[in-house]
């Protein structure tokens, strides 16, 4: 496929060189192995605990995506509401801005109290951190419709709903996509923060490995988290390309 050809070769080279250097540094004892396990050790740990890692990976992925899904539904709905009512926007949006400045890691303990141990807390944590970029970007997109296009719809006496679905939402698509790109990463952060306190997934795995001084497990989990973020982003980008191919929304915005 086309995207395979476009793999960033320099980045791939520096990644490989970095891993080799790291491996060598541990092998020649330039850095202490008990603090920085070698890549080969991490791979071995991953292989040995394959089932645990896969289970934890899937749990975290599930929590992140569930939170992100809620963010998409509620974020877009709220943005539409705000774009229709200036009053609601002024009444609610400042608090949303304020709320998102509180670190999720500080809110997480509260969430455990309200939602208990396990998945619900994780989903809510992922939801809380990932909704704001979607609200903000969708709102920006909905309000960026060029004036002549709005006037065109006015001249045709389009109803507010027709205006929303035939003009505003399609115009907002590139902004919504930009918001999604940010939110996907944030949802994973939120899920991990939730798992630290509520258990389950890679978050809990990292936490318990920390108490047992199993740094190799921590590194393995981190590698998997990076992989998760990358996979989600790639999936999003490919879907975006597919959408653009069928319906060229906002062509002036790249990727």
């Amino acid at each position: 496929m086309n995207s395979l050809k476009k793999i960033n070769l320099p980045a791939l080279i520096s990644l490989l060189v970095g891993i080799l250097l790291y491996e060598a540094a541990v092998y020649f004892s330039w850095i202490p192995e008990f603090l920085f396990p070698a890549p080969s050790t991490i791979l071995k740990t991953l292989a040995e605990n394959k089932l645990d890692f896969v289970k934890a990976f899937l749990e975290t992925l599930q929590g992140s995506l569930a939170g992100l899904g809620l963010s998409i539904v509620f974020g877009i709905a709220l943005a539409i509401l705000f774009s229709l009512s200036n009053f609601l926007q002024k009444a609610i949006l400042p608090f949303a801005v304020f709320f998102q400045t509180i670190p999720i890691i500080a809110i997480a303990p509260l969430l455990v109290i309200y939602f208990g141990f396990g998945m619900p807390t994780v989903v809510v944590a992922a939801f809380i951190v990932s909704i704001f970029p979607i609200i903000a970007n969708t709102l920006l997109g909905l309000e960026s419709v060029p004036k002549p296009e709005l006037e065109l719809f006015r001249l045709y006496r389009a109803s507010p709903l027709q205006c929303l679905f035939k003009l505003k939402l399609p115009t907002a698509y590139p902004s919504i996509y930009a918001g999604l790109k940010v939110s996907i990463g944030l949802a994973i952060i939120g899920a991990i923060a939730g798992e630290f306190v509520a258990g389950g997934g890679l978050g809990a795995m990292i936490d318990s490995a920390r108490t047992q001084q199993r740094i190799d497990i921590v590194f393995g989990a981190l590698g998997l988290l990076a992989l998760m973020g990358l996979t989600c982003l790639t999936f999003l980008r490919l879907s975006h390309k597919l959408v653009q191919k069928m319906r060229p929304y906002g062509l002036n915005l790249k990727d």
Partner: protein
Amino acid sequence: MATVLELQNIQKKFKDRTILESVNLNLQDGEFLSLLGPSGCGKSTLLRLMAGLENPTSGTLSWHTAEKKTAFVFQEAQLLSWRTVLENVRLPLEIQAKLSQKEQDEKSHFALQKVNLTSFESFFPHELSGGMKMRVSIARALSASPKILFMDEPFSALDEITRFGMQKQLRTLCEQDKLSVVFVTHSSYEAAFLADRVLLMSAQGGQFLLNEKIIYSQPREDSLRLSPDYHSHIAKISAKMSESFL
């Protein structure tokens, strides 16, 4: 000829600035009227008032038709990038939602036929040239069969060859469909080629300096651009222009 739209003592202010001061104007049925003037003279504002996009500060605007079937063509084509050519042209019909999907498509197809673009129906706007985009924009304006067409410098962004072709095509279309047109432009050559009547506006206050009826002894083809008829009209307009603006 019957009057379709009548403006009486129209005044328009933006904050403290008076753009139009007591404008009186009649648009006749089937007439091609051109509003000519320098940038900032208020010709676009006047057009937007007539189209209902702005409200006058004072004065009356009366329609003498049973139903107000109008369409507006902007300076830019203003096509929706995510809709194909046919879907863009269908937009007004879709919003009206009076016809079945099939009838809407047929009417849109017919409108595209008028601007010779039927073979581009499934293209997206970014795949078209500037002139083609403007033709789609005109087809969209025509798709809901308007009686009056308002146009705000629609050809000003096009190259000369394309512009000449579009002018000819527009004039033919308007005659076929018996449209009344109000066409804003800053080119006396464009105004004199297209219009039955040219109204020259003053730089300030929106007064009409000249109300020039344009009559030719030959059809409006490219050869007209070389004819003495055409040039005598332009000379008259230019004289009035330089008299008032220099």
